[in-house]
């Protein structure tokens, strides 16, 4: 707790931001309490579309959590020194994202008080059990590493040697959390949109694009708001990672589209038709999916042309586009459309309701709050040295 004091002193701007986030979190909590007393009927979910934005956001943020590996791996396996200053930021982002994931799962439970039944009756055949194990382990790993690193920075000594093997372990572990999350979906024979072996690689590609994109934006924000500068080189290198990952992600999506649409197998084509053209006159997701595609194309143009990518303002805009594009595609479309059409061929539209949005915003606010506090501590320690 020696470090929390660093988060307790700050400028007026810092405190207004904190109060703003706390208010949003409280706003979400109020609606969660309503959901708790009324039931999940308060959301837009239904008998046919039985998972909605909570589970979709969970999936998206598992990706953000896993993407910390994209700063750790170059730094520890390829000795990319420029990332030395931001590995800690990556781990702290991972911690915040994993906690957000857990909250998204928690608010999706019909009987949240019984959630520990998952530990009481561990079921090895259920991927949800394994997801809990992998996310819990990842959280623990990152919490231990990040605490040790902060501690040694505070004391002005190098990080203890025992953190090295843990860091190396966290690299494959990060890959595992998103693979297991993909397995949650792609082992279900009845949901053709998810029933594809490319789902896990696609999840990883989108994770390694969206996470580092967020990292770029956070680094730019830190430079503007604090004395901390990740360095132009580090930010550019993150840009290269986003470029590769986003290209691979779009490639995987095109593979899916080709296989499903060219083969003309109705079951495989229908969910994609629903996403991009609408089915039976229901086009709720169509504008969002085209927006996602347009953002992806625009981002790719900005990223793939070196002259453009090197301009920081363009890179920042591309990062925003990548994040939004994947947020729409993975954080909403991919999960919702898995339920369309239903096993009986019904096309049931889904849109989050007001209370559902409020709960989602509340969890984002908690995530932003954690990142703010963690980064404030880190920057304060570095300023003191």
């Amino acid at each position, binding site marked *: 707790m020696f470090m929390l004091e660093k988060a307790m002193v700050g400028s007026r701007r810092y405190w207004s931001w904190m109060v703003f986030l706390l208010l949003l979190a409280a706003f979400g909590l109020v609606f969660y309490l309503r959901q708790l007393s009324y039931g999940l009927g308060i959301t837009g979910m239904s008998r046919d579309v039985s998972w909605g934005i909570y589970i979709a956001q969970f999936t998206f943020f598992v990706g953000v959590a896993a993407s910390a590996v994209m700063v750790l791996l170059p730094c520890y396996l390829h000795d990319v020194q420029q990332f030395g200053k931001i590995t800690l930021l990556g781990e702290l982002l991972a911690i915040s994202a994993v906690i957000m994931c857990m909250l998204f799962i928690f608010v999706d439970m019909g009987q949240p008080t019984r959630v520990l039944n998952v530990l009481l009756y561990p079921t090895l055949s259920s991927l*949800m059990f394994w997801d809990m194990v992998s996310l819990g382990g990842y959280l623990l790993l990152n919490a231990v590493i990040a605490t040790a690193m902060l501690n040694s920075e505070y004391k002005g000594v190098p990080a203890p040697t025992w953190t090295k093997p843990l860091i190396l372990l966290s690299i494959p572990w990060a890959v595992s959390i998103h693979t297991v999350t993909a397995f949650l979906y792609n*082992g279900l024979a009845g949901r053709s949109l998810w029933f594809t072996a490319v789902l896990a690689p696609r999840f990883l590609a989108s994770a390694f694009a969206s996470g580092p994109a967020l990292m770029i934006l956070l680094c730019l924000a830190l430079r503007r708001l604090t004395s901390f500068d990740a360095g132009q080189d580090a930010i550019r290198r993150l840009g290269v990672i986003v470029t590769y990952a986003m290209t691979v992600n779009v490639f995987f999506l095109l593979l899916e589209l080709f296989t499903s649409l060219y083969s003309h197998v109705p079951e495989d084509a229908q969910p994609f038709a629903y996403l991009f053209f609408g089915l039976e006159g229901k086009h709720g997701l169509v504008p969002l999916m085209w927006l996602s595609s347009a953002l992806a194309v625009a981002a790719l143009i900005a990223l793939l042309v070196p002259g453009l990518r090197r301009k920081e303002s363009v890179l920042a805009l591309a990062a925003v586009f990548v994040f939004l594009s994947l947020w729409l595609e993975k954080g909403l479309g991919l999960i919702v459309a898995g339920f369309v059409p239903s096993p009986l061929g019904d096309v049931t539209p889904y849109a989050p309701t007001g209370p559902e949005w409020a709960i989602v915003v509340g969890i984002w606010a908690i995530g932003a709050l954690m990142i703010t506090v963690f980064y404030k501590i880190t920057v304060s320690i570095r300023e003191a040295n």
Partner: protein
Amino acid sequence: MKITRKEFLRILGASAAAAGAARLLHAVRGESAMPSQFVGRKQRWGMAIDFQKCRADKGCDDCLRACHSVHNVPQIPDPRHEVKWIWKEPYEKVFPFQQTDYTRQTFTGNPLPILCNHCASPPCVRVCPTQATWKRDDGIVMMDYHRCIGCRYCMAACPYGSRSFNWFDPRPYISKQNSGYATRTKGVVEKCNFCEERLADGLLPACVEACSQKALVFGDLNNEGSEVRQILGKHFSIQRRPELGCGPSIFYLI
């Protein structure tokens, strides 16, 4: 009583030998007699639904009403929040690929009852993180409403849409409560239980009993002499999406 180390080791050795011998005996005996003996003894409940008899009266909903009143299934008007154990859907939705455009006798629009398939290899059971849904030895896929955490993973896994979630307290939507069966609470999943509570009392499932056309035939699929096996042996029947490998216990005679 005091045991010396020597005695302890002797007892340990003797018990290990006894346990090993028993296992060996079991293995040898099992090898010769197991298969036919075992399969014959184990029940597997199943049902045959005769489409010709069922469609004789398209408007009939006796099976649905019997089931839903016995099991306190709420009647929720909003289809998005409905709870259903057994209900009717038009033929083309139940078997979308079992009819050509040129079928002599068109079945389109004819309602057909559907319910939980009580699969031999149920995906819902595989994915449930708490074993709140499990398969009994007699093939019935059960639900524990007190253990279910309401994650709805089973609903995502079921390829038949047979599971319902209680999006809110269902009790206000039960017009006449049957005190013989538990009502459910908000936040848990439920589905057809093949009337396991009636089977335990030696009764047929409520839907089977209620059908005046005798279109639903219930029985032990592992017993060659049972009525359901006789019918399945004589007539051509189809299952919903058998290609998924779930092994449904519900058969449709077309």
